[in-house]
Every structure is written in C-alpha cells, then in structure tokens.
C-alpha cells in the first residue's frame, strides 16, 4: 500500500512539474496570414500600430519565457502617442497589452506543445489524476476502520503549516497570479485542453476554460478523498456529491453547452451563481447583453433577480445558508474538497471574528453601492455618477475583490489560513445569507444538553473559525451568521453533542447558565433570571 502511495506521489509530482514548466517552454512564430486575422478580429484601425507590431513579431521567433505583453504595450503606447499628437481619436488602440499578447501566443505557437496536445494532457492532467488517485484510494485500507480520521494532522508538514504547506501556498498563489494577471503564460496550458473545449463549446480553450476544467478535476479527485475519509458519515457523502454535481453541471457544462448551441446569450451563464457573488450581473454591459438577447436573456435577467431576492433567502429560512455555501456554491465546493485538509487553520480568536465582521460586511456594502452606481449609470445612461467614473469603481472591485480576494487570497492561502478565507472574510453573498440565517431561519446546530467535555475538536475543525465549543460547553445552540453547515463539528465530536437541524424558530437561541444534568430547581432558578 505504501509503495502504491509513493508511486502515486511521484507520478503526481512529475505531472505537476511538467504543468509548472509549460508556461516557460514552447516556441512562437507569427506568420503574415495569422497576423492579419488577428488584427481584423481585434478591430484595430491604427496603421502605425499594425506596422510596428508587424515589424516586431511577424516571422520572428519567440520563446515561452519571453514576456510579450511589455513589447505589445510599447507598440500600443507608441501608436497612441502618434494618434494623440495628430488628434486621430478614432485610430487609438484600446486593446489591452496582456490580452493582445495572449492572443498572439495562442495564434502563433508551433512545435511540440500544440502538436502533441493529447500526450501533454496525459503527462500533466493524466499523471496528476492517476498519481493522486494512487495516493488516495489505498486510504480505504491505510486509514483503517471507518470513523474520524484526523490522526497526525498536526504532525505533518503538509497540514501543519510546514514547508510542504508553504510550497503549496506559493504554487497556488503563483497559479492565480498567472491566471488573472499574466494570462499569456497560461497559453501553453490552454493547448492541453483545446480538444476538450472544442468538443464541448466548439471553441479553442482560453485560460478560463483551463481553470474551469482544472477546478472540476481537482474537485472530483478530492471528492473521492472525502468519500473515503468520511465514509461513515452519510451527511458528508451526500453533501460532497451535491457540490460536485453543481460544479460540473451548472458551473462547467451548461455554460459551455450554451455557447455550443450558439444561443442568443453568447457567453454562457452559471444558473446557480447568485448576485452579489456574481458581482458583474448588474454591470451595464451585461444588462445590455441580456436585454439584447431576447427571450433567453430576459429569462436569465428575471432568474438572476428572483434567485437573489426570493430563492436564496427562502431556502436559507428553511435550511440555513448551508444549502448554498456547502451544497451548491463553487467556491464552497472547492473549499470542501481541495480545502478539507486545511480546515483546521482558520483562526478562532475573538479578534479574527471582529475583523471578519468588518471585512465581510464591508465587501457587501461595496458590492451593493457599486451595483447602485452601475444601475443608476445604466438607467441614466451616464458613465459618471456623483462625479465618480462608474467604470473605475467596477475595475477596482474586479481587481481587489474579484481577483485578489476571491482568487489569490481565497484559494492561494488555503494551506496557511484555512479553506474558507474568502467565504468567511470576503464573500458578499455569504454576508447576505448570514443576515438571513442569523435573524430569520429554522437552522441551528443543537447542543445536546450537558454532554460537552470542552475538548475543542469542534472549534479546531470549524473552517469558518467559529468557536463552536464556546457555545457547546455552555449548553447553547450555535446560531451564527457565518456557519456554512458543513457538519464537520458534529462529525468530529467524540461525545455526540452537536447536530445540524432545521426546527421551529422558537427556542432556537437558548441561553443557559446552568447546564442540563444539574439540580432541576437550580436550573430553573438561574436560567429564568
């Protein structure tokens, strides 16, 4: 068993190493035809730019490691300077240098990588999947009898913030930085999944397809790990299946198929992604697109509004915010699968709770105010509201919250700060659901009378940083806006103290001074006060 696992780790590391090396490899050479196609598709009218770019790129060799974006930026700046001087506003180039560089690379790659997509897929994704499964599946045997399997979590470098955890941290953060800010380096990755993308949507893959595909693969593999680790716990099995289903079908397949069918709403839509997590839903370009897309567009518009205003709060009333955060949501799905080994790292201090409340509600306010601005701008048909450019608010949010917070910090920091950093400190939808859960819901974690022994397993393994024990040891039910109902506190409790339940609102919050089991008179005397 150990041998199989070690072979698995080796294969995984080889796959990961090839994947990591890919951005720095490859050869690129742009020929005249492709160059012309590219210029046409980007709708560029500046001859200065076209001539310059042609001189720089056409029939010239580039390697993977060379950054093209700065070169493109130089060409753009130069062209725009000329046009500014000549007051030729119509000819100015607005295309981003990063996007342009990415497009050039995608169109001009030749040689081993684009010619051996299948082989390279096997050497990266293939080895990664096989290797990790060879590591995970033997756990059916090595973990021993079914039950709670947290042995040695705090003895291992990978799960105790040791050097492995820091390496994973560096890898994840770099991956997200490339994805969001240096997409030209992701081009070689897109070749690996081109065949899959073409078979789904008919289009070659971009970096977001790589991300979406990888997301599904990682979740599936880590869901298998969940099934093995929690095989005694039906709640965990059902919940894991649910998040996996919603990720693969709703977030990945349906949008791709929508594109394939060339529906009027051309970019595909994730029907489960509710505003304000889906923060650009009310951006004016999206509204315009939806309205212009006829029946389907209108349906999505109405669905998006009903989802946020009706479905989400009503479901939270009946089941708690868990129905979304740990059963449906993609961010939650990754956190509950890839992130499960790191759940113990969330800080339980009162100080963290204070930061959490300021931050998450701050982001919610930011999202709502921004949406107010964009809606006002949309209806008033103006780009400036109260003297502020709407576009710059949107850009700030997309950069700070959408990319840095949700992506780089949200997932990159898993191995150090736990798997729910984004969900706990940043997600505006979670903040909204939290209000409903705290003030109007049937959901609670029931504390079983006086059975708590204050051992601390529940608090340690709460991914949302709730000090569960603080409530349980006082005999109080846990009613907290941040609880995503993952059910792990209940699973790890050695004394059967905690149970996630949907019940009557009355008696849901039950402050007690004296715990059940002590003299009945004393209980009534003190608890009545």
């Amino acid at each position: 068993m150990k041998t199989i696992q070690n072979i698995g780790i080796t294969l995984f590391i080889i796959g990961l190493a090839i994947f990591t090396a890919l951005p720095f490899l490859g050869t690129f050479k742009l020929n005249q035809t492709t160059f012309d196609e590219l210029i046409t598709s980007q709708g560029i009218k500046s001859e200065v730019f076209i001539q310059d770019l042609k001189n720089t790129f056409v029939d010239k060799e580039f390697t993977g490691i060379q950054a093209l974006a700065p070169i493109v930026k130089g060409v753009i700046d130069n062209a725009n300077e000329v046009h500014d001087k000549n007051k030729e506003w119509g000819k100015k180039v607005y295309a981003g240098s990063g996007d342009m560089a990415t497009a050039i690379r995608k169109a001009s790659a030749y040689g081993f990588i684009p010619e051996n997509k299948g082989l390279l897929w096997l050497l990266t994704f293939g080895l990664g999947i096989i290797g990790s499964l060879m590591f995970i599946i033997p756990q059916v045997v090595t973990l021993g009898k079914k039950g709670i399997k947290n042995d040695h979590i705090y003895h291992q470098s990978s799960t105790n913030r040791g050097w492995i955890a820091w390496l994973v941290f560096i890898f994840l953060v770099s991956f997200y930085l490339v994805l969001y800010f240096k997409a030209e380096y992701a081009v070689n990755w897109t070749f690996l999944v081109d065949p899959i993308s073409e078979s789904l949507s008919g289009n070659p893959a971009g970096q977001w397809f790589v991300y979406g595909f990888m997301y599904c693969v990682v979740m599936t593999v880590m869901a298998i790990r969940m099934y093995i680790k929690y095989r005694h716990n039906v709640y965990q099995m059902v919940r894991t299946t649910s998040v996996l289903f919603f990720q693969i079908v709703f977030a990945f397949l349906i949008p791709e198929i929508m594109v394939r069918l060339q529906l009027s709403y051309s970019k595909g839509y994730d029907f489960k992604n509710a505003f304000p997590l889906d923060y650009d839903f009310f951006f004016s370009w999206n509204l315009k697109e939806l309205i212009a897309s006829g029946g389907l567009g209108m349906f999505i518009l109405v669905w998006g509004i009903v989802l946020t205003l009706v479905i989400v709060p009503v479901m939270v009333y009946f089941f708690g915010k868990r129905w979304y955060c740990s059963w449906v949501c993609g961010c939650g799905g990754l956190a509950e699968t890839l992130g499960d080994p790191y759940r113990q790292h969330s800080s339980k201090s009162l100080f963290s709770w204070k930061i959490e409340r300021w931050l998450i509600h701050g982001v919610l306010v930011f999202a709502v105010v921004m949406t107010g601005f964009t809606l006002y701008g949309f209806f008033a048909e103006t780009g400036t509201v109260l003297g502020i450019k709407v576009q710059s608010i949107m850009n700030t949010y997309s950069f700070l919250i959408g990319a840095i917070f949700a992506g780089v910090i949200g997932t990159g920091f898993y191995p150090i700060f736990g798997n729910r950093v984004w969900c706990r400190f940043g997600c505006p939808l979670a903040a909204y659901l939290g209000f409903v859960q705290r003030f109007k819901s049937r959901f609670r974690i029931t504390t079983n009378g006086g059975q708590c022994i204050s051992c601390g397993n529940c608090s340690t393994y709460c991914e949302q940083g709730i000090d569960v024990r603080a409530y349980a040891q006082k005999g109080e039910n846990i009613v907290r806006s941040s609880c995503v109902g993952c059910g792990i506190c209940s699973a790890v409790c050695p004394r059967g103290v905690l149970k996630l339940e949907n019940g009557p609102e009355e008696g849901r919050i039950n402050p007690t001074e004296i715990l059940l089991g002590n003299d009945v008179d004393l209980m009534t005397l003190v608890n009545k006060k």
Partner: protein
Amino acid sequence: MEHIVIIGNGIAGVTAARHIRKLSDKKITIISAESDYFFSRTALMYVYMGHMKFEHTQPYENWFWKKNRIDLVKGFVEKVAHEQKKLFLKDGTTITYDQLIIATGSKPNKFGWPGQDLKGVQGLYHKQDLELLEKNAPNNKVCKRAVIVGGGLIGIEMAEMLRTREIPVTFLVREKSFWNGVLPSGESEMINEHILDHHIDLRLDTNLEEIIADENGHAKAIRTDKGDIIECTVVGLTAGVTPNINFLKDSGIELGRGVKVNRFLETNIPNIYAIGDCAEQHEAIGNRRPIEAVWYTGRMMGETLAQTICNNKTEYNPGHWFNSAKFFDIEYQTYGWVFSERSKKETELHFHWRHSKENICITIAYDAATKEFLGINTFGIRMRHEIFDRWLTAKKDVFYVMEYLKDANFDPEFYKSYENEIVVKFNSEFGTQIQPRKKSWKRIFSKA
C-alpha cells in the same frame, strides 16, 4: 473585598470561578501547579494523536482571565493553615483567603506493584503525563511495545493513542470482559471485539504482578499473574484514579479517600469547600458513588458552589445521571441508570438490541414490576439528552420509550435510523404491538 481562592484550575475550579464572577465582584484567585491556563483534560489524547495542538484544548483565550478579573497563580500549595486562613506555596510565598475551594482533582492509582516507579512507567492524567508519554513513546522505534494495566476509560484511550503511532499494545484487564463492572455483558462483549479489531493484544482476566527493570532502572518487561513475561518499554498505569489530596494530610480538614464534604460541599472547616474529583460525599447521593471523578459532576459542583459562595446557599443536587465516552470509533452515551450484571439489583431488567453487522447497540433498563424506564446505554447511536432527562423525570415506562424512541434520536441528518428494528425486536420479546411514532418537533421542544 472578599478573597476567594481556588486550588486547581480544572473544570470544577474554573466553573466555580466563572460563576462566582457572574454573580459577584469578589476577588478570585486560581492556583495551579499543572498549567498556566485551564485546559480540557479529556482532550489530552487528541494532542498526542495529532488531532489538535495543546493550545486547542484551552477553552478560553488567554486574555479571558484578566478581563474577568480572575487572577491565575502558578504554584504548588504545600500547606493549608486554616486558623490563619493562609496557604503556603512551595516557592515560599503565602496567599491569604477568605473562602477556600479545594478542586485539586485526581491522580492515577498505584497499587504498590513492584517496579511501579521505574522509568517508562506512567499514568495518563496530567499535562505532564502527556509530555512524558511523548518522550517515552514518540514512535514504535523508541517504544517497541507498551503494556497498559487497567481496563477503564483512560486505559482504552491510552491504547488508542499509542496505536496511532503503530506501537504494539498489550492491554491487561482485571475483569473477565472489558469494563463489565459498568457495562452490561452484551456491550462489554462488543467493546472486547472492537479492541481486538484495532490489533490490540487484549488480555482479559489478567493482573499485573511485577514490572521488571533493566540495568538503567527502566522498565523492560512485566510479569502477569498468569506467569507470562511481556517485554515492553512503556507501562501505562490506568487502573483508576484517586483524589489528589496529599498536601492536606495534616491540615485538620477531614479526609477519607477524598476531602469529606456535606451536601453543601462544605468541609468540616468553615469557609473551606471541596468540589470535583477530590470531593467525597459523606453519604452517596442516590445511586451515585461518594467520589465522582467525572467531568460533568465536577462542572455541576462548580455551578452549585458558586451559588453558595454568593449568598444563595444551595445543596449539591445532581439531576438524572448521564455520561459519555468513546471507545476507539464507537461513541457511548448513557442516560439514567443501567447497571451491569455484576452490580444490578434483581428488580432491574434489561432489553438489549445489537445491529447484526455494525458496532451499534443499545441497552434499556426497566423495573421488573412497574416497567418504569430506568436508563439507557447507547453505542453508535447518538441520543437527545433533554428527551431522556424529561422521560426520567416523568417516570415514563419502557413501552412509552419504545413508542417515542424516534424523538430521542440525535444522529446527524441522513443517517440510517434503527428505531423500527429495535421496536420489532422489543415487540417480539414482550409480545407487544408497539408502533414507533414519527419524530415530532412539537414533542421534542415542548417544555413538559
């Protein structure tokens, strides 16, 4: 301002301190030689197993004590001089009190076995015992085999701990079946099987005769009363605990096995009280033992004594008995009284159900004549404390319990439930026609 001094920062002492603070403004000092801050003793095993770090066993953050004006003193009390209301600490300092609470807990039993003080021989109770075990048994290279002596809750926990580091364990149990002084035979039998499933060399009906030393004064083997010599590097002594009260020997405070207290938890000396593991009732309360070394009772005594100290003189009057434990992967809960065959009265009868494959079973005790429900042991099924507490108070009969058993289930959602099977077996044994009722929120939350 009145000065309340508490010796011992375990669950009893800390609960008393917290409640005194809630009820009053008195000056509170807690003295402990064991640790800087309160921690959950029951969680020490998880630190060794790597589920948690030691800091996770501390239920309150370090700022909590200052904020609540509870002074913490690290020191060992050597002498109590009650005439002067003064404590003498090992480091030479003294502390004066107005009211003194003794909450010093227990220490592992040693029954005078030859070799019981050798190196490598240890109990598992204090924080220091955990540190020692980490030194004695860091892995299976240093510790080639461990022998655990004493088949109780700490013994089986220690076996579980050592097994996580793949250390071979021999488990000596005096009884003919694990913990059968407490558990009825069906349950005890199931735990025996589970211990063997975890690859432990379980030796029932076996006593320790002697621990044999090597040339360095370290344990190298033990000899059992069957004459077997078992080589080992660590010997765990887990044959129960005894009150930790040596320092009170000549203090004038009345001692038995523990500190003798009345129902108000008062000792024979005015203004001195004892709570938790170290307190011994003059007369046992109900079916309880005079000394109850249980987390929950320590907490209850703390809650009660705080009332008395804050001018609401209150008897210690525990409600219905309850307890819980975990045997490797099997959770155990008990509500009310279920006695083992060894200790039960003739009027107590049992209904037992066990799952055909899984490690799940329950035993329900009832009165032979009245059929009154006396208590339940459950293994592998979680039950609702409040429901059983209510049924015990209302003196429901065993038929009622069967009919409404679904209300009491506390297993996580989507778990398979076994009430129907249980009731079918009950009906066939009792010739009854009970139909289990569907779970009702209304009944569960009604304040009957």
